[in-house]
């Protein structure tokens, strides 16, 4: 199984290489990628530097161009594909059908992976992309259970990549408009979710805190309570008489314990989420997953998740909590 790791910066890239990533995915610094945060991502010269380093160390470089190309600015997305091809990236990760078709026609030799943002959950959906845009691999949304992933691997000839660790999107990716509904900016169009420029932290005299997004109250934290980022689906809201995390509590996805099942199912690659994360975070997560995958491959019968690995991942998780998410039906 290939370990696919995130890099939002040169230092995160170095960290991922040093800790044993098999492949690293990056984005260009504009709205063509789904982690379009200020100060993140790669301009052309940094991307060239990354590719040189990747080649030298035998690591693959993938470029995520995984937002939806807007009608009036389609050329901007085409140019990103041209740029990835000129760079010599090993693959582009894309969701937009029109853009995938452009890449297939213009650069047939450059591998195309279907981004999770395309939200393909069935062999039939994958077959559509395969027939019309020649995808070789697909990243599967975090809404499927382990049994569903096993079925998908058995039914499709497209390589399957699943999320191993990181922020938990509880909505089918690429089909969530919650962010644009409240802020006007969305993952699909601007490559952002609950963007930082709309966040307001309001510290109160008693030590409590309000977190707001575009003026709307997303959460209230009592004095001393750990205040999380106001991502819309992780806020505390009132439904009828209950005030609670109506969608999901702050938690991270962690499928380390499912690694043997994922390998047995035929999963081709494990993706680590987090291009927005620090180099230190990337280094820690990648090092744990590298050890786990190596241990599994070395001796599949004796695979054991070491407590030290889980402790390290828990420390790096949102709210210090992790979950199997939809991989286990009990979560649903």
């Amino acid at each position: 199984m290939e370990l696919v790791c995130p890099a939002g910066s040169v230092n995160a890239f170095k960290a991922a290489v040093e800790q044993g990533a098999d492949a690293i995915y990056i984005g260009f610094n504009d709205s063509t990628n789904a982690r379009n945060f200020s100060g993140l991502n790669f301009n052309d010269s940094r991307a060239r530097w990354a590719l040189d380093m990747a080649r030298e160390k035998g690591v693959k470089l993938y470029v995520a161009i995984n937002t939806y190309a807007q009608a009036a600015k389609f050329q901007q997305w085409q140019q990103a594909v041209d740029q990835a091809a000129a760079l010599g990236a090993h693959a582009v990760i894309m969701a937009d059908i029109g853009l995938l078709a452009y890449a297939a026609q213009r650069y047939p030799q450059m591998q195309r992976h279907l981004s999770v943002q395309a939200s393909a959950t069935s062999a039939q959906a994958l077959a559509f992309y395969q027939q019309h845009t020649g995808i070789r691999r697909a990243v599967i949304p975090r809404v499927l259970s382990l049994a569903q992933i096993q079925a998908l691997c058995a039914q499709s000839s497209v390589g399957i990549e699943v999320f191993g660790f990181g922020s938990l999107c509880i909505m089918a990716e690429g089909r969530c408009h919650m962010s644009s509904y409240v802020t006007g900016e969305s993952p699909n169009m601007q490559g952002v979710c609950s963007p930082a420029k709309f966040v307001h932290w309001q510290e109160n005299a008693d030590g409590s805190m309000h977190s707001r997004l575009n003026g709307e109250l997303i959460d209230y934290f009592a004095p001393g309570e750990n205040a999380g980022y106001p991502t819309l689906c992780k806020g505390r809201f009132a439904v009828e008489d209950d005030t609670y995390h109506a969608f999901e509590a702050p938690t991270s996805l962690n499928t380390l314990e499912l690694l043997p099942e994922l390998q047995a199912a035929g999963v081709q690659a494990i993706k680590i989420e987090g291009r927005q994360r620090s180099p230190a975070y990337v280094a820690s997560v990648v090092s744990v997953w590298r050890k786990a995958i190596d241990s599994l491959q070395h001796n599949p019968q004796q695979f054991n998740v070491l407590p030290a690995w889980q402790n390290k991942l828990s420390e790096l998780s949102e709210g210090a909590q992790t979950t199997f998410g939809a991989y286990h039906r009990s979560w649903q």
Partner: protein
Amino acid sequence: MKLSVGPILYFWPRQQVLDFYAQVAESSADIIYLGETVCAKRRELNWRDWLDLARDLAQISGKQIVLSSLALIEAQSDIKTLEKYCQQEEFWLEANDMAAVQLAAQRQLPFVAGPAVNIYNPATLALLQQQGLKRWVMPVELSAEHLNAMLANYPGTMPETEVFAWGHMPLAYSARCFTARQQNLPKDNCGFACLADNTGKDVNTQEGNTLFKINGIQTLSGHCYNLLPHLQQLQGQGVDIIRISPETPAGTLAALANVQAFSQRGQFILRDEKQCDGYWFGREGMQIANS
């Protein structure tokens, strides 16, 4: 401009569904979309019932009937239902997922891309048109300006454009059922909790603003989208069909009557504080941009 009634997004008792469509059959709507688009477990009407209803309505009303498919395909049984819809030739399919697009295209069944299919540019729409797409419903977050750009850059003849114009907008789909979660029930043993909610449950901020609605695995906009005051603009913008998305039966019929009143007298009645139109004007969806 034609007028359509979108699929019922909520889970209603069987009789309420049948009574509703008996009234819609007599309304000014030109097109009716039928079927379960949110949760495969909702079976007050199964696929055969929907197909029977489609035949009855087509015969009684003479309106175009389109079968709507599930937005989030998770199980093999969901694919089986889709296949059933694609094995008939009487009605177009509203594909709400790429699996539905693939099956319709394979069987050469004309299809409509529903609002959950991500069509953001002419290249995508053109590719789907080659596969048998006859109409697209614009993703709800897109604006008038965006539609302009689609029309201006389209290679060839655009398929019909339908715009979601009234109702709570579908914003997201999850593996998790939020209605079951609110009742502390597991999804696998949900007791069909959403059957009790005629139009979903409001999700309010702790300051009392309604942000969203939960409807099973679906999240809807907290405010009701309403482009009906802007019908004239929509008409001039190349919109072929406007969609009324069912809310309460009475509210939906009132919205339909409003459109008719507008076309006859240029007047509108509907408007309250929980409405929004921001997306159409390129703003955050929940805003009333043009008040």
